[in-house]
């Protein structure tokens, strides 16, 4: 019985994902064979070996290895997302605790949240007069909403019983925050953070295509101008892998605290 259960889990957890990936590769190969424009997986794989062998070369500011481009993008995301967390999470706590403020900001948030990220780019260029801060601004403004909204929802949903404990003991505001509100809202906050990092990573690639400079999004666009299709495919896979890794790391972090 136990052996059978083990087999079933093996089937589900290992065999099924492998089959999915194999199907993906097969489809890719077929498309490459038929269309002629798309490089086959094997060609792409060979290009990957060459590319990643010298991922960190540097020939001046406009010709750097893909590794440097990736790191530049991650740095922008870290900055924009970090700033968004620093502003968004405390703001979410305030909104969750002060109903008046929540009502006051609700129309503004509802209005600005659905705006497509790149629509913010001209404002960033206008204000900062440089491409790099503008890209960081776009990440900031598009990744802040999930953190504000989830944190506020989490704080609002803190059970009244827990808050009554704080009231009965007359805990100081700081103790109430650290011992009651923060731990109670933490799972929601971390969900917001996880959604935000996903958004930030989605946005950076698009923003860099417009702003240029160094970055994985710019690199991808540059390879399109060079008509190096295997590199475009590799950039797509790389962006996907990094995005997945970021979300996975935060999911693990969230589980630790939940």
């Amino acid at each position: 019985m136990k052996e059978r259960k083990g087999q079933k889990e093996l089937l589900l957890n290992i065999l099924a994902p492998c089959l999915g990936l194999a199907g993906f590769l097969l489809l890719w190969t077929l498309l490459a064979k038929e269309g002629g424009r798309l490089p086959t997986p094997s060609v792409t794989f060979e290009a990957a070996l060459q590319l990643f062998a010298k991922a960190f070369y540097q020939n001046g500011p406009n010709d750097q290895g893909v590794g440097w481009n990736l790191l530049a993008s991650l740095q922008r995301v870290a900055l924009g997302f970090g700033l968004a967390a620093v502003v968004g999470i405390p703001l979410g706590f305030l909104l969750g605790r002060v109903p008046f403020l929540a009502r006051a900001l609700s129309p503004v948030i509802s209005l600005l949240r659905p705006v497509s990220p790149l629509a913010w780019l001209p404002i960033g260029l206008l204000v900062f007069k440089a491409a790099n801060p503008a890209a960081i601004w776009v990440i900031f403004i598009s990744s802040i909403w999930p953190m504000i909204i989830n944190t506020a929802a989490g704080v609002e949903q803190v059970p009244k019983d827990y808050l009554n404990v704080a009231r009965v003991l007359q805990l100081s505001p700081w103790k109430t925050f650290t011992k009651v509100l923060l731990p109670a809202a933490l799972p929601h906050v971390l969900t917001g953070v996880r959604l935000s990092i996903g958004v930030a990573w989605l946005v950076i690639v698009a923003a860099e295509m417009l702003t240029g400079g160094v970055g994985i999004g710019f690199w991808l666009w540059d390879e399109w101008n060079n008509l190096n299709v295997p590199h475009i495919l590799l950039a797509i896979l790389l962006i996907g892998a990094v995005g997945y890794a970021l979300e996975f790391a935060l999911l693990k972090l969230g589980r630790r605290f939940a």
Partner: protein
Amino acid sequence: MDTLLAPVHGRLIKQTHSIVVDKVRKVFATKNGDFLALRDISLSIRQGEFVSLIGHSGCGKSTLLNLIAGLDTCSAGNIICSGREVRGPGPDRGVVFQNHSLLPWLTCYQNIYLAVERVFGATESKAQCRARSLAALALVKLSEAAEKFPHEISGGMKQRVGIARALAIEPQVLLLDEPFGALDALTRASLQDELMRIVAASKCTVVMVTHDLDEAVLLADTVVMMRVGNADMPGAVIARTLAIDLPRPRERLALADQASYHALRKEILDFLYGEHQ
């Protein structure tokens, strides 16, 4: 109750009275207009007295307890507790909540320490606060569960930690809101015995909300019976108070054979299910 003087803000009323509830009225604003929950409730409780509030659900007994705890405010009238008017919650009143309300991210020990630190942290050393927290756990016989989290222990144990937390701050008044309502009969009985022992030792004033008349008779010095309002007379009132003059220490098995116990029990039974309702 008759000897009660008109309470004056903040002034000491009567040394022997721990809690004085004076013409308290509570109105809740609802979607369908104002709802009168309590109508002119007056009650005085002696130092060290154990009072049970009993009545059908919705009779306002928990509302009255919340007012004494300071978690809610009176719409009219006032409440004096330990010589001071109640204006909010305070560590002079320990509260045991219906559903234990332990913070799940803290261990049993940490839950108690949080309370102890708040009340004694300014005047006592960390070691003394630690000792107080451990002593409170020992009082409810849960020393071995100190490092356990609330989800790792049973419902009865959680409620005991809740009692330990309330007692660890050495309150003058202990307020219990149906503390054993969610427990099975056997656990409830052992916790009632434990509560009797603890209260006898600490000598604090106790107000307990319950809907279990056996519990009320077993534990209380005075049973306060509350009656729900009706269309003619909205708002709950105190229908009557009954002194439980059974000698202490009380033993549940011995009580079962006593005529006086059954007489008291019947009086409450008549009230709960008789013509009044």
